[in-house]
């Protein structure tokens, strides 16, 4: 049985559905990320786990104990630690008092309390700042205080609500790894909310991608990147070229289909699952920019080769980004930075059928 089970969780705000009967299972010691654009219900889900929102339906089971179905369990009784987006470090208390607040409520002996505070401060790298007020700390330091406060009571579950979104890019990257290794070392089951796909991919064991109140895909970063469940996921995680069209032919036993698009009669694509439907079905043939291969001369030994024109280019340091047109369709292509290209130049694009998928 999973450590946290979310069963048909349903929450609405003034008739607007925020979380639409989602199901999730989170294993003990796992770090799961809820990823999605703003308004997708990820934060609401997290706040339901914390007990800060009262869902209208469903149940949340933490370590075998139902939080809703046998009477609403108050947040204070759930044994969770939470890091808020805006830190929520109390400005009227010193760092030390912020951290031991929860311990005091548990009536922890003073000596033990000091010891625990000391070790958790060491853990987050804030030793010696016990007597500072939050206003005397930088954003990153405040975030560490928030983390220390959430960890000091050894919670069963750690909830993190976009904890890094208020920090600058450099610090954000640094803290991602820090949080990951810290939480892993302590073995705490944790749920992390973010809208930043890179952050989600770095930090989590599994990612649940959410869209308008639903979990649209659940899997590891690799699974989600390589086999996105639908167009939304593919678009949200990384960049994807979408070529709308319809299936004109299905090759049974091969997981292959041919798609008719705006610029060609037959684009060969691989499908993740068996597709039965044929014809008329609206699909998106899709390929990642880094999977498109470019040729100066038309290679004759393969299919899925089309002529395109470079309309724009962007130099991004480690690679070159080309905006191309194949007939009327825009295709983005990522190539190594040393390949010289000019705007207006005509090239041949190869959509490797293995890497060209169809999405709905």
């Amino acid at each position, binding site marked *: 049985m999973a450590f946290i089970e979310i069963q048909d969780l349903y929450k609405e705000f003034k008739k607007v559905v925020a979380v639409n009967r989602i199901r999730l299972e989170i294993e003990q010691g796992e770090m799961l990320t809820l990823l999605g654009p703003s308004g997708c219900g990820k934060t609401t889900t997290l706040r339901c786990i914390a007990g800060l929102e009262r869902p209208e339906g469903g149940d949340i089971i933490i370590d075998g104990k139902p939080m809703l179905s046998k009477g609403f369990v108050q947040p204070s*009784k759930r044994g969770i630690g939470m890091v808020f987006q805006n830190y929520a470090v109390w400005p009227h208390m010193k760092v030390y008092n912020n951290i031991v607040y929860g311990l005091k409520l548990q009536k922890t002996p003073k000596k033990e309390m000091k010891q625990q505070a000391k070790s958790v401060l060491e853990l987050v790298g804030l030793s010696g700042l016990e007597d500072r007020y939050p206003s005397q700390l930088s954003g990153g330091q405040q975030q560490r205080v928030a983390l220390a406060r959430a960890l000091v009571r050894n919670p069963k579950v750690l*909830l993190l609500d976009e904890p890094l979104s208020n920090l600058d890019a450099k610090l954000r990257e640094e803290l991602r790894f820090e949080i990951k290794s810290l939480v892993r070392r302590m073995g705490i089951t944790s749920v992390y909310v973010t809208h930043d796909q890179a952050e989600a991919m770095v930090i989590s064991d599994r990612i649940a991608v959410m869209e308008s109140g639903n979990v649209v895909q659940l899997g590891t970063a690799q699974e989600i990147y390589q086999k996105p469940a639908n167009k939304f996921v593919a678009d949200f995680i990384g960049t994807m070229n979408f070529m709308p069209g319809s299936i004109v032919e299905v090759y049974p036993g091969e997981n292959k289909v041919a798609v008719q698009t705006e610029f060609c009669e037959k684009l060969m694509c691989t499908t993740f699952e068996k597709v039965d439907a044929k014809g008329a079905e609206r699909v998106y043939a899709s390929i990642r920019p880094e999977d498109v291969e470019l040729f100066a001369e038309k290679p004759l030994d393969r299919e899925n080769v089309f002529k395109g024109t470079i309309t724009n280019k962007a130099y991004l340091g480690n690679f070159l980004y080309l905006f191309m047109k194949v007939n009327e369709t825009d295709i983005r292509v990522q190539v190594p930075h040393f390949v010289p290209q000019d705007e207006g130049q005509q090239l041949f694009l190869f959509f490797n059928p293995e890497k060209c998928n169809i999405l709905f």
Partner: protein
Amino acid sequence: MKHGQPGLSVLHFCKGWDMSRSQYLLAAFLWSVIAFLVIYPLSILVLESFKISGTETWGLGNYLEFFKDTYYLKTFGNTLLLSSLLLITTTVLGIPLAYILARYRHRGKTVFTALILLPIVLPAFAGVFAFIIFFGKYGTLNLLLMDFGLIDKPLNFIYGIHGLVFIQSLHMLPFIVLGLSAGFTNIDPSFEEAAEVEGASGFRRFITVTLPLCTPSYLAGAVLVFLWPFTDWLTPLILGQVDFLPSVSYINIAYHFTDVHRKYMGVVAVVVSSLVCISLFLLARWWVEKKTYTGLSKGTTEEGRVVEPSPLVKSGAYIYMGLIAILVLLIPVVLGLSAFSRRWVFEPFPTYWTLDNFRLILLDSPGMVKNSFLFSGIALVLGIAFGLPVAYLVVRTRVVGKDALDFVITLMLAFPGIAIGVSYMLAFWQGIPLATYWIIMPLALFARRLPYFLRMAHSSYLQLDPSLEEASEVSGAGKLRTFFSISLPLLLKGVLVGVVMFFIMAFQEISTAIFLYRGGWETLPIGIYLNWHRGMEFGAAAAMAFLMIVITFILLLIISRISGGVLKAAWGTAKK
């Protein structure tokens, strides 16, 4: 106060001396007005307090006597006691009230808020008179209770320190409620949620997190409450309790002009009260500025954290709000009854209805109404002409000494009205005999109420993005043109609220005016006081008070139309 406008400062730097010269000229002009209308009279006041009567000498004699004389010491002690009681009462009453208004979702929120905050704009004396009629020895309540045979002798509801605390509490309660409810609404919800997650539930969370975080906004109101007994000379006087500093000063100065020594002692009392007021005000300000907590939350809703209380709690809340609202409503109702009647004595309700009182004050001798409008109106024009440039100077320029200017004007908030009145009386009598002309009245009103307007102009200026003005300048408009075509239209809403608020405040000013008026210069508040004091035209006084309430109410409606909310109207523009 810190205002960061890096963009503008660079602009000023480039424009160099030319631009700032006109700003310095403006600053010099504004300073000279302040020097003439504030600094000069107040220094005369202080000087006067060092004069020894019967001699030409100066010395600390009066102060030594003040702090040795058991009577003055007792008065001082009484005032401090009253202040403390007042603060405790308003705080105890105000915390639940503010919490209900800020956090509970309930019907009639706007109405209750408006009613509870109403006393802030009602003249203090209107409340006193209404409560004497209702709660007095042979007032409505006592007569009703005796009629029903519940009591034999009238109960003493209001004569004494308990009555003072009661009446002043009701008048000052809005300051606490406004401060606290703004605090409850504005604090970042995640502070409380974090405490909830950490294991603190309900009351504990309120005590350890919510309330401490609201202290800055509480304190802003609390200091005004605490200082009120050092300012309000009228309420104790009417209730027959004169042993309080402002009342003693008033009696010493206004009634004993022949006894020069008593006059000097009165001036000493005024100076002492002013010193107490200013130091407490500065202390509170310093503390608030040190402790301003801001959250980082981007997603807080406008209404803050709102809860749905249980039915039991909810009905309790309604009863509580209702009781306070009824007490507030008593003021206009009782005054109204009295205004439309005659010979209302020894009866619980009036029996003889008439419009005579209104005929008297509106038709027979309309001077007071006319004076009130005239003086407040002139004060208002002066206020705008002076307040807007000051706000501009403080917010938008880097003129040396602008913060000092702002500081001096803000200090006027703390000064007891009696100090302004007395100092004008002393300063503009000999030497500069301005007090022999009626213009002294609007000038005094202007000086006294200036901070109210300035604060509003100031805060709306702060909310005006400097880049909007910069864009106009870059497009080729001069400073003045930019001000009239860009700044003023955008500021107008905030400024208009300030204007109306200023007018309301000037309209009901009595502490200052009472020392300066001469025959024919009486305003409505003075008329009320005189008619009541003489004990004759009871109904006329009530009619005037009722008229003032009606006018105030209309003005308030106008404000809430402009600013879209009574709460905002009473407290100034929303915080940034």
